[in-house]
């Protein structure tokens, strides 16, 4: 970006979330200076007290799910003032772990948890941003991978398609030369049906994949669940495996519901 040229205006927002994905942006320690030279961060409450939520924004990053009526209103305003809207993380792209309430009675939860339920104004479901407004790109993860975030921003600046492969975790696990924890250790691993991006983090530490990046395209969850059952898993285990951080994502949701009595 040459001198005198206006740098793209970036906004970073959060809805219902833990802020971890926004932190991935701040975790880009080595690249942060180059990034700040290329973009103009207009609104980023997690990082700066200079706030301008009204925009307009060339690129907006939205973290978090829609959990309250106020968030829905805010989201519509964000969309209206954003040219490109990218959702980041499992909450924004799949409803997040808080979407577990979608499978239960929301009113009952409120009564059980809060001393003054009448203070609580939340929706019955926690839902991904794309269920409410048009989204230009979804970056998966819990949290997102910072290298992928950098790639999405770099690609936006260069006008290219982000190099974020829509493949299984197995692909990056094998590229990294990891030994398959499912085959060699008999662990339950959601890697074969889960979207890549984490760098096969859990298998690298000898744990099966938890599926936090959500289902990959054409996720054959039924075949994997059948295999887990044949390997000795019971129905509640299958439900828990698919109903975790991205349990509200369509393919995982359908699979957990198939095993939920």
């Amino acid at each position: 970006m040459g001198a005198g040229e206006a740098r793209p205006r970036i906004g970073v927002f959060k809805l219902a979330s833990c802020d971890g994905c926004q932190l991935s942006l701040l975790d880009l320690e080595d690249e942060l200076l180059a990034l700040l030279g290329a973009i103009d961060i207009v609104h980023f409450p997690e990082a700066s007290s200079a706030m301008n939520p009204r925009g307009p924004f060339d690129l907006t990053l939205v973290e978090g799910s829609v959990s309250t009526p106020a968030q829905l209103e805010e989201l519509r305003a964000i969309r209206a003032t954003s040219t490109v809207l990218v959702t980041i993380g499992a909450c924004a792209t799949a409803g997040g772990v808080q979407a577990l309430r979608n499978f239960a009675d929301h009113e009952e939860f409120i009564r059980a948890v809060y001393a003054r339920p009448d203070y609580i104004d939340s929706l019955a479901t926690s839902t991904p941003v794309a269920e409410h407004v048009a989204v230009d790109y979804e970056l998966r993860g819990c949290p997102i991978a910072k290298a992928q975030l950098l790639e999405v921003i770099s690609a936006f600046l260069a006008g290219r398609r982000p190099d974020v492969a829509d493949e299984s975790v197995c692909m990056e696990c094998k590229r990294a030369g990891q030994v398959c924890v499912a085959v060699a250790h008999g662990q339950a691993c959601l890697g074969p049906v889960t979207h890549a991006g984490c760098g096969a983090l859990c298998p690298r530490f000898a744990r099966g994949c938890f599926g936090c990046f959500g289902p990959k395209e054409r996720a054959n969850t039924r075949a994997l669940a059948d295999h887990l059952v044949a390997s000795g898993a019971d129905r509640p285990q299958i439900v828990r495996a698919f109903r975790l951080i991205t349990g509200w994502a369509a393919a995982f949701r359908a699979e957990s519901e198939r095993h939920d009595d």
Partner: protein
Amino acid sequence: MSARLSRGGFDDLLRLLRERGYRVVGPTIRDGAIVYDELDGAASLPIGWTDEQAPGRYRLRRRDDDAYFGYVVGPQGPRRHLTPPVEPLVKIRLRGPSPEVEPAAPADPPLALIGVRACELAAMAITDRVWTGGPFVDPRYADRRGRAFVVAVDCLEPGALCFCAATRTGPEVADGADFDLRLTEQGGAFLLEVGSARGQELADAVELEVASADDERARRRGLRAAEAAMRGRGFDLEGLPQTLFANLEHPRWQEVAERCLSCGSCTQVCPTCFCHRVEERAPLDADAAERVRYWDSCFTDEHSRIHGAQFRPQTRERYRQWLTHKLGSWVSQFGSSGCVGCGRCVAWCPVGIDLTAEVRAIQASPRPPADDACGEVELPAARTYAKVAGDPMRPQLAAVTAVTRELGDTVTLHVEPAGPFRHLPGQFCMLSIPEVGEVPISISGQEGAAILHTVRAVGAASRALTELRPGDRVGLRGPFGSAWPLDQAKGRNVVAVAGGLGLAPLRGALRELVARPEDYPSVRLLYGARSPEDILYGPELLSWDRSIRFGPETVAPAARAGHVKVHVTVDRGAPGWTGHVGVVTTLMRRKPMTPHALYMVCGPEVMMRFVLAELARAGVPAENIWLSMERNMKCAAGLCGRCQYGPYFICKDGPVFRRDQLAGIFGREGF
């Protein structure tokens, strides 16, 4: 003449290899498996361990001896060292006074591969043909492979999933195989055979004893027992490619797709799978864009996707692609099967799908040919290619000398390559914008030193190309692929049928046909566009045939070529349009299609399907029809595997094919 090598001598051998600068790689235990990694010495080997394998299951087990090579095969063999899973190809320096292209990485130290099994040696011979046997040689592979020192080991205890006896790739490391040294483990020592001059040089440097005839007999006995242990496994190779391609609509493909996770694990452990994608890597703070190769798989969505089309959307089609390629079309492409019987794809499939069982199921219940509406596939014999020198992945930065706007979203780039550039009409180039991406674009003619490329803005890279200005530079690789049959067309009536932007790949050929009436006595172009505003090269079409009714004529014909007749039709008319309205096949019905003319067809695939059906109805034999195909191309050099179309690679066998070459493939879903 064999010799006996003690364990101490083996240690010396590894030490000598390291002293000679080799990176010594071999089997070692990590994370509960035997992996192929750097060895510190013989102590790093899986001494006294073996691996038990079953579909979807792998476990290490202690042996009751201290064998060095008493295991079968680990998840990944030498492949990841000869073709790294992530490999930078070139760097394109953008900033500074003049952009430059340079190799991405300095040469690695030479590899010494220890413990290479017969199946892995066979896999290396197969991948040699993939990476170096086509029109282009991948210099990275050729360099690593050429310098690699191979210490092969006979396989005396095949695992439960091994079927190399059926694929005829083991268990013996045969005398003539491409190894430097061969070991046969016998108790506490090895039988050693030398296979090359550098192997001899190393053997001369270690202490050896003379082997006895008993040692040789014991080796043969062990190999026979190993072979016997595999009896009944695998599948019958006889006629297998034909059987698979005669059963492309077999119900078994759907059945296996219901079990298959399409995770790609089988392709990532296969020692011969070579598909890869190529991406731009341009971190914000870097002054150079890198082009990087990543292992890919025919099970990923991106593998068979181009802008606006996904050719293998279903897992059924992806599994079929993998298996029919590995065991069928591989023979047409590279002269042998792509399977070496190592069993890795069976062991490491997370749900234990056994490819040998899938093959046997199809062999056991073949479908009658009448079940297949698309007809029979003809698998050609493997061909040899004329070699093209240089690194096919290294672009030159060519000058854009002029840009002609053709349509609202379409321009013609005049690109002047540095140095000589010879091409034939019908071929294509890879054009790229560093940091953005690279796309295949057909050559649409030549004017002076400028090679013309007509580009429509559909994706990020093509959009960036249409935004180029004269004086800019563009990444250029090529030319690639086959050409229109201008020689065969001499003296014959020629009919070109084009749809939309499909006129661009034909224009170079049409210019030849127009310019040489003595060679081409009658040329007819039938061209269909979506609307009058979408007619490509309008003025040039008028210069070929001024009788075209285009609506209000604004351009005077430059020359009249009396042997050329142009018919234009549009799908949708517009005010002022006085020409024909209707799809291009309606033009074909108005003008009789003579069977003996030569037909060149180019356009969207669905349009070509209708055109070919119309030509078949008119009785035009397949040998008289040529068409230009499109698939996902990343390398254009026959290496990345993504543009496969049945037994062909579009990039090196096409894009221009004769109709009968594509019998049984063209028009079939999922190819």
